[in-house]
Structure formats: structure tokens, C-alpha cells
């Protein structure tokens, strides 16, 4: 094979061991069929099988959270009670938040796609601690089931932020739900720990730090946050559970406690948590834009450093959730200016993604369609984040639907778009099959349009003055609420289309071949789907940087930036 050719078929990278053209061998079956008993799945230590199991449960919880979301939007159609009473509604929005954040958003991209793709990207056989990986899945499920049990047995009505003193006095089932979230925290820490050690110790020879795929950089930054921030919320969840049961009064003013201290401790985790939710999506998008523009990422080091920058500075901005909570003006100033700095890192990434498309060779496939939606939503959502970070403006917007729209733009508009892009981009890698491209684009259109129709009215109704967590609202807010609910139906319809054609593709999709996107990302060196130990023969080497699509006969390729 010509080692420096970039136009060989299937985008094979030079330097990897020879094997025949088919995806699997007789003696190296792919991971899906290597062992077909239930036990071989439930007790697997193969990161790919663990990722698939995570995927099943995460999609299930996304469905449950989504059903709660639809219930909310239906209830919001009229100013008065529509389909439920006040206590039910209060439980519904709480559970929508708890499920979506703790059971879906935090694990979604890392536990599914990080688990599946990271070792492949590093040329490794597995993650550093495969048994810990399996344990993280079961810990996650244990916590999730405990939380769900609590939801069915009394529910929780405090909002996902469970501010004290209300959360320590309410008679709903605080303890099981919060303790379930506490248990899930251990899973998050285990995943983060695993990824950090994997990236440090298991890179194939030739993959220096500045040749790491950007998805790996993003996972690294995310894992640092997971490891450092999650213990703080873990402690808080345990303490509040105890307070609810035993009334210690650590945050109860009647016993000398300070409710604002609770908020500080809560947001110290929960702000970095939003970066846990969004950084992996930035990493995925870097991979997708490079593959589908068939071009190197524009400013590799800038993107890599900006992930670290977000992780680091993100720890110092939590007070922007508390501008009107009674914290001092000085604090507001410090948190306000640091939040502006965090915004810069995202701006850097946006410019670099757009720069990647510049002079590229764009193939507008479904993952790229999601990238388009993602780009617009990240800019708009990110800028509205800067807007609410402006202290004087946040006085009006705090705890209104403006903030709800802002964070849904990022959480749904960025992360869920990236999640969908990941599913579509790595579908052939994971299953060796392709889905129907036309339906993919149709669904993406519904989702992107439906998303806009759902959440732009929420910005406006927040401006108008509608607070969040409102079961009944003054009549003047109705028109915008109806518009938002209509959009939500479109959005839901889009998701249903995706579920249908992907399920169909799992069963009847045509074979994808090893590298249908002709990508030069490192994970495409392995077969699709990969064999159990990822590579056959000696460990592959990766002499070139990832996503190098130049024609070597033309201009000089500078050293990797």
C-alpha cells in the first residue's frame, strides 16, 4: 500500500495491519456476535457491549423524560388547569428535569459514544478499567431505578434544583429520588476516571497529545469535570436526603442554617455539570464537521485548549445562577466577568468549526444536517447565555422562561443534536449497517424546525415576564405557550421518525462497509463493526494526524499544529 496516499479507497490509513476486505473473520467475529448468551452481555467487559447497553437504557429514559415534556407542553396550552392538577404538574416538571439531566444528559454522549469510540480512536483494546466500566453501568441503573421508584411512589415536586428549605420540608418522596441521583453520581465519576486513565496510558504509539482526536480532548476535559465536581453534589444530595429524613437543619434558617449556602454548594457542581453535558457534544461536532467537510479541523490546538479552558474556568462561574439570590454585589461582579470569559472559549470553537467548512468538500449527510442545527443553536443559545450572564439584564430574566429557553437551546439544541449526530455518524461503526439517508434528512428537518418553534416562543414569553415552574399563568401568556406546544409536537414527531427508521435499519439496513464516510478519523481504522478486541494483529500505529485529507502531491503539509 502506498503509505502516503490519501486517495486510496475506503480512506484506509497507512500503517495498520493487513486483513481481508470484509468486516469480520471466522476467527475474529465482531463484538455483536462474539458470545450470544445473555450472560455474555450482562457480564461483558467489552467497552462496546457496555456502550450498547448504556444506549438502550439512555434512550429509554430519554423517552420517559420526553413524555413528561409533552405532558408539560399540553398542560401549558391553557392558563388554567388543562389535563392535571397543580401538585401533579409540579411533580411532572421536576421529574422531567431530574430524568433528563441525571439519567440522560450527563451520561449520554460519554457513556455511549465515549465508551464505544474512545478506545478505537486511541488504537487501544479497551478502556483502562473494563470491570469498573461494567460496574458503572450497574451503578447507573441502580440509581436510576431507585429514583424512578421514588417518582412513582409520591414523586418529587421541588424542581430538579431542590432548593432548601422547601426541599427539606416537602412531603413528596425526596429521599429516594435524591439518593438515586447520588448513586448515579458514582457512575459518572467512574466513567470520568476511566477515560482520564485511558487517555493517559493507552494511546497507541504515534498518538501524541497533539494528535489526539478532538473528541478525545473533549472527553478528557469532561472527565476532569466529572471527577472533580460530582463529589460535591454527591455530598449535597446525601446531606439533603438526611435533612429531609432527620431535619438536621443544616440549611434551615430556623436552626441557624443558610439557604443561600445550599445554592452555592449546589451550583458549584451544577454549573460545571452543564459543561459535562455540552463538552462531549462539542467534541462530536469537531469530528463530524471534519469528516463531512473532508478537511482538517481549522485550529486544532485552539479547539483542544478551549475544551480545557471551558472545564477550568467553568468551575469559577457558578454564582451567575444567583445574581438575585441575596449574594453580594461584589460576588455578582466576579461571577459575571468570569462567565464572559467562559463564553469566549465556545466562540473560539464556533469560529474553528466554520473555518473547517471553509475550503472543504462538504457532503451534506444526516450527521452534517445535525451539525447545521447544532451550529445555529450553539451560537444563538450561547449568545443568550452571555445575555443572561449580564448582571443587570438577568434581574429581569432570572427564573423566567427566558432562562428555560436558553438552557434548552444548549441542552437540546447542542447536546441532543450532537447525540443524534453521533448515532447517525457512528451507526455504521457500531452495527455495520446503514440507515435510510432520505428519512434521516427529513427527520433532521422536523427536529430542527420543531425545536425552533418550541423554544423561540419561550424566549419571548420569558421577556414578557412569565416565570418558570408555573402551573397556571396570567392569560396574556397563552398565545406564546400555545405556539411553543405546537412546536413541541413537531419536535416529538421528528424523534419518532428517527426511532422508526433506525430500528428498521438495525434489522434490515444494508451493509455499510468499513468506512462509509471515507473518514480519516482514527476510529475508522478498525472494522465496522469491530471485533471484540478492536484490532486484529498488532496494535495499529497512526503516523498522521487525524482528519488529514490533503493531496500530498500538492502543497506542503505542515507539521501537526
Amino acid at each position, binding site marked *: 500500500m502506498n503509505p502516503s496516499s490519501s486517495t486510496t479507497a475506503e480512506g484506509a490509513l497507512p500503517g495498520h495491519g493487513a486483513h481481508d476486505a470484509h468486516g469480520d473473520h471466522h476467527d475474529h467475529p465482531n463484538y455483536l456476535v462474539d458470545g450470544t448468551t445473555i450472560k455474555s452481555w450482562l457480564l461483558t467487559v467489552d467497552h462496546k457491549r457496555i456502550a450498547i447497553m448504556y444506549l438502550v437504557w439512555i434512550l429509554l429514559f430519554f423517552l420517559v423524560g420526553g413524555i413528561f415534556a409533552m405532558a408539560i407542553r399540553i398542560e401549558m396550552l391553557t392558563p388554567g388547569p388543562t389535563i392535571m392538577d397543580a401538585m401533579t404538574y409540579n411533580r411532572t416538571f421536576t421529574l422531567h428535569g431530574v430524568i433528563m439531566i441525571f439519567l440522560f444528559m450527563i451520561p449520554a454522549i460519554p457513556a455511549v459514544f465515549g465508551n464505544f469510540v474512545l478506545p478505537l480512536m486511541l488504537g487501544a483494546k479497551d478502556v483502562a478499567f473494563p470491570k469498573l466500566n461494567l460496574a458503572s453501568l450497574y451503578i447507573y441503573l441502580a440509581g436510576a431505578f431507585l429514583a424512578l421508584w421514588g417518582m412513582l411512589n409520591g414523586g418529587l415536586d421541588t424542581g430538579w434544583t431542590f432548593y432548601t428549605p422547601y426541599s427539606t420540608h416537602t412531603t413528596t418522596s425526596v429521599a429516594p429520588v435524591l439518593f438515586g441521583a447520588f448513586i448515579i453520581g458514582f457512575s459518572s465519576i467512574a466513567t470520568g476516571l476511566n477515560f482520564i486513565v485511558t487517555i493517559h496510558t493507552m494511546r497507541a504509539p504515534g498518538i501524541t497529545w497533539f494528535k489526539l482526536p478532538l473528541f478525545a480532548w473533549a472527553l478528557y476535559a469532561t472527565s476532569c469535570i466529572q471527577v472533580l465536581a460530582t463529589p460535591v453534589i454527591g455530598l449535597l444530595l446525601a446531606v439533603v436526603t438526611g435533612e429531609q429524613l432527620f431535619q*438536621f437543619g*443544616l440549611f434551615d434558617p430556623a436552626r441557624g442554617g443558610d439557604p443561600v449556602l445550599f445554592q452555592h454548594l449546589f451550583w458549584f457542581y451544577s454549573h460545571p455539570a452543564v459543561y459535562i453535558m455540552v463538552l462531549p457534544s462539542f467534541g462530536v461536532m469537531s469530528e463530524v464537521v471534519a469528516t463531512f467537510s473532508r478537511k482538517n479541523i481549522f485550529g486544532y490546538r485552539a479547539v483542544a485548549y478551549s475544551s480545557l479552558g471551558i472545564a477550568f474556568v467553568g468551575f469559577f462561574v457558578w454564582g451567575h445562577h444567583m445574581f438575585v439570590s441575596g449574594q453580594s454585589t461584589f460576588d455578582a461582579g466576579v461571577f459575571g466577568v468570569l462567565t464572559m470569559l467562559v463564553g469566549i472559549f465556545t466562540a473560539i470553537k464556533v469560529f474553528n468549526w466554520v473555518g473547517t467548512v471553509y475550503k472543504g468538500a462538504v457532503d451534506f449527510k444526516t450527521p452534517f444536517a445535525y451539525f447545521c442545527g447544532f451550529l445555529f443553536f450553539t451560537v444563538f443559545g450561547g449568545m443568550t447565555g452571555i445575555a443572561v450572564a449580564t448582571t443587570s439584564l438577568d434581574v429581569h430574566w432570572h427564573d423566567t422562561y427566558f432562562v428555560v429557553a436558553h438552557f434548552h437551546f444548549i441542552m437540546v439544541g447542542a447536546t441532543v443534536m450532537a447525540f443524534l449526530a453521533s448515532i447517525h455518524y457512528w451507526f455504521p461503526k457500531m452495527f455495520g449497517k446503514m440507515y435510510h439517508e432520505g428519512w434521516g434528512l427529513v427527520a433532521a428537518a422536523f427536529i430542527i424546525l420543531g425545536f425552533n418553534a418550541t423554544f423561540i416562543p419561550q424566549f419571548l414569553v420569558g421577556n414578557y415576564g412569565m416565570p418558570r415552574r408555573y402551573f397556571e399563568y396570567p392569560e396574556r401568556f397563552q398565545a406564546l405557550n400555545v405556539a411553543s406546544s405546537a412546536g413541541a409536537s413537531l419536535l416529538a414527531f421528528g424523534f419518532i421518525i428517527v426511532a422508526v427508521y433506525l430500528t428498521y435499519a438495525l434489522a434490515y439496513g444494508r451493509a455499510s462497509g468499513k468506512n462509509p464516510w471515507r473518514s480519516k478519523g482514527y476510529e475508522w481504522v478498525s472494522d465496522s463493526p469491530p471485533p471484540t478486541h478492536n484490532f486484529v494483529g498488532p496494535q495499529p500505529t497512526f503516523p498522521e494526524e487525524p482528519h488529514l485529507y490533503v493531496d500530498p502531491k500538492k502543497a506542503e503539509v505542515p507539521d501537526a499544529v
Partner: protein
Amino acid sequence: MQSSAHTAGATPGGVPRLAGHFASLEVQNHAARLGMWLFLSTEILLFAGLFVCYAVYRYAFPEAFAASSRHLDLTFGTINTIVLITSSLTAALAVHYAKEGKNKLVVWMFALTIAMAGAFLVIKGFEYSHKFHEGALPGPHYRMAAVQMAGAPLYFTIYFLATGLHAFHVIVGMTVLGWLMVRVIRNPNLGPNNYTGIELGSMYWHLVDLIWIFLFPLLYLI
């Protein structure tokens, strides 16, 4: 980081199993240590929340906190500190002996460590029962006549949460060291190439000690 050079047969000790996904034994040991350091950092952040609560409430109720602190048993606390620091010494010695392949001494060191941890818990138990009798209990159960000030119940809430969480970690540490001890008894094959498990267990124990070293002055001394 210790080197784990394969000096062919020159020193005693067996060769541990290399897990299939690691490139070499050295990488495996490095990964294990890195993983343990990361885990220890999570433990530090877990306690950090309680330290923050302590700091904030001490600032809000300085006299109540000082007065309540006077009512802790300084003798017991000091003995506990000495016991725990000594147990850290024996844990460190266990690692030293493990590197030299002296399996029996490793078992003894761990046994001593566990025994001292047990002593720590016993003394803590005495302290707790004394608190129960005095009425120095968290939140609504507080009824200590000696210190009736706003903020005193809060002090004891933090005291019980922090020392209780710490005691829980002491128990976990004892279990981990005990399990390691049993493994060494069953399979005495430690050596310069094979002591990572002992090292990790000992690292965990040092963290448990370190947390106490911060708790003790904050709760007992100031």
C-alpha cells in the same frame, strides 16, 4: 513513581498478571496508580463541601462554635490523632516491606493498621455516646445545657456529619486493607514487580488519615 524493572530473577517476588488490554506491566501499574490518585481527589472534594459548610457557619456563629468546640473531648481527639498517624506509618511500612517481598511483615503491618483503626473507632464510639448523654446532638435533638447559643446545634450537625462520614471511610479502609491482607496470606508473592495492590490500599489509608488531620484541628483545636 517506582520503577518496575524486570531484573530477571535477581529479587524475590512473583510476576503479577498482565491484563490483556494494557501494553505492558509498567503501563498497567501506572494506570492503576493514576486511577487511585483520581479517586482520592474525588474523596477530597467530597469532604470539601463539609469543610465549606464549617467555614461559613463558623464565620456566622463564632462564639457558639468556639464554645461547642471546647466541649469536645480533647484527650480522646488527640489520642485518636496519634493512633491514626501511627496507623499511617504501619501502612507505609507495609508498602516498604511489600517492595522487598517480605510477605509476612506486610500482613503484620496491615494487621496493626487495622487494629489501630479499630481502636480509633472504639474511641470515637466513646465520644459519640458521651455526646448522646450530654445532649449534644444535631439539629432538633440538641439539648446540651452547657452551651445554649444560636449556632451550637449547627456545630454538632457538622461535627456528626463530618466525623461520621470519616468513620465510614475508616471502615471502608479497614475492609480494603483486610481484603488485601487475606490475599497476601493466601498468595504470598509480593516483590518489587508486584506490590501495586498494597500501594493502592495504603494510599487510600493515607487519605483517610489526611482527612482526619484536617478535621481534628478544625473541630477540636480552634
